[in-house]
């Protein structure tokens, strides 16, 4: 659906994006991840045809973003970072304006605006001026204008930044709803967001692509494997001597916690919880806790983007 090839973009001497290549397939929800200033927004601005790239191309549905600019733009709905809107317009008029600019005929516009009002929950604010809306509603208006022409592709730059936790959940649900029948590329630096709503993650750092895969793939690609934390009511030394000789896992850390329970942190290459439980039973240990600490995207993100 979207093919980004060797894309480079600099602002003067500053290289914002360096030879990035990736593909987005039809119907996928892609999360664009990276620290602030990594080049996420720049990449998206090139993908929407706003910024011309210095090198490389973006091909959308077989058409080049620069050569076939207008038909390509018609396939894309775009919500830029920080949701710019014409603040002096009434919400309805604004949506009508965007619909008209998108080439929707005057007869079809009310129906499209009604559909967007329902999809984004804009009933209460249609008659209000855009600058009187809360951040959450502005975000919804931004999403509505991006989808008004029913585009197969949506590019959303930090759609949940600056929202309160309730609004974040609402917008996320809205995006998931939208993502069912569309290709969505969204950028964020909130990791749980990617875990919550994306099929695939692309991590960018310092203008280069450092990872591309499903959240699962990225997690398993991390070195270090599994970590298990157990707590028991038995004597620490005694257990330590047995666990020290136990082949499947390696003790990374052990000690006694505030409640007087012994704890052991074990490292292994596979899931050892079942074996560990049987080991405890065979030695008659009183196991009070057995917890797998799976590596999450946060670890992946840190490992890839720091250093």
């Amino acid at each position, binding site marked *: 659906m979207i093919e980004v090839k060797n894309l480079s973009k600099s*602002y003067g001497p500053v290289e914002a994006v360096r030879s990035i290549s990736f593909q987005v397939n039809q119907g996928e929800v892609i999360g664009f991840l990276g620290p602030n200033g990594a080049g996420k927004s720049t990449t998206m*601005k090139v993908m*929407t*045809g*706003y*910024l*011309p790239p210095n090198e490389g191309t973006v091909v959308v549905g077989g058409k080049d973003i620069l050569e076939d*600019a*207008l*038909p390509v*733009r*018609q396939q*894309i709905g*775009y919500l*830029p*970072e*920080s949701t*710019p*809107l*014409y*603040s*002096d*317009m009434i919400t309805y*008029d604004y949506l009508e*304006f*965007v619909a*008209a*600019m*998108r*080439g929707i005929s005057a007869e079809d516009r009310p129906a499209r605006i009604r559909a967007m009002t329902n999809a984004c929950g804009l009933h209460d604010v249609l008659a209000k001026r855009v600058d009187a809306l809360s951040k959450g509603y502005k975000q919804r208006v931004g999403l509505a*204008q991006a989808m008004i022409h029913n585009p197969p592709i949506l590019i959303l730059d930090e759609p949940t930044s600056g929202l309160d936790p309730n609004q974040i959940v609402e917008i996320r649900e809205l995006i998931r709803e939208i993502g069912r029948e569309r290709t969505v590329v969204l950028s964020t630096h909130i990791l749980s967001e990617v875990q919550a709503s994306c099929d695939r993650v692309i991590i960018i750092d310092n203008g280069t692509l450092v990872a591309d895969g499903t959240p699962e793939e990225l997690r398993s690609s991390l070195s270090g494997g599994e970590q298990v934390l157990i707590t028991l009511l038995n004597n620490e030394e005694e257990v330590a001597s047995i666990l020290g000789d136990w082949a499947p896992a390696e003790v990374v850390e052990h000690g006694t916690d505030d409640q007087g329970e012994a704890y052991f942190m074990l490292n292994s290459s596979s899931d050892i919880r079942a074996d560990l439980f049987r080991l405890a039973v065979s030695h008659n240990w009183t196991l009070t806790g057995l917890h797998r600490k799976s590596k999450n995207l946060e670890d992946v993100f840190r490992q890839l983007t720091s250093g």
Partner: protein
Amino acid sequence: MQQTWILTKRELRAYFDGPAAYVVLCVFLAITGWFFSNALFLQNVASLRSVFSIAPFIFLFFMPALTMASFAEERRAGTLELLLTLPVRDWQVILGKLLSVALLLFLAIALTFVYAITLAFLGDLDLGGTVGGYLGLFLLGITYGAIGMWASSLTRNQIVAFILGFAIIFLLFLLDKITDFVPGQLGVIMQYLGADYHFQNLMRGVIDTRDILYYLSLTAFAFLLTTYSLAKRPE
């Protein structure tokens, strides 16, 4: 082309939803009206000459003021990104905005037709001078507007856009008035490049294509510079 017109309508609405258009129209009418009636009643001159000679001065300030927001504000607010990722060409966006300024300008000028009609009843109206003067005023205003718009496309700060636009327009306005300070041949060129010189020609009732062409080419040049400035998409 349809989208250009849609954009023009939006821009016009933005002018008329706020106080901008009304302030411009009222102040323009008040100043020209005062000069007109002053000549008519105090000096007993039944002529539009006083109106035509004050209007370029008003445009000197009003046209950069009307256009200072056109791109600078869109850049500051980030809406330029939305506008330029719509399925329209950059030049359509510029044309749409310029058209809205032209229409507002036309309205302001058309409202002063009252003076011409009054004169036609009172005495003999110099038809050639009136038509030429109005045509010149309109062309002059559009040229200033196109330059103001270019200045607006260079910055995200409206004040900078206004001052820059004003400075360029003022320079054009001055060019034919400082020819005494430069040697002969250069003076002729400067006179030809002066915005006011061509207006004076038209106001005399001589509608020469060279004068019209001067304004149109200057407008086209400013338009072209604006497309270059937008194509760079600076942050």
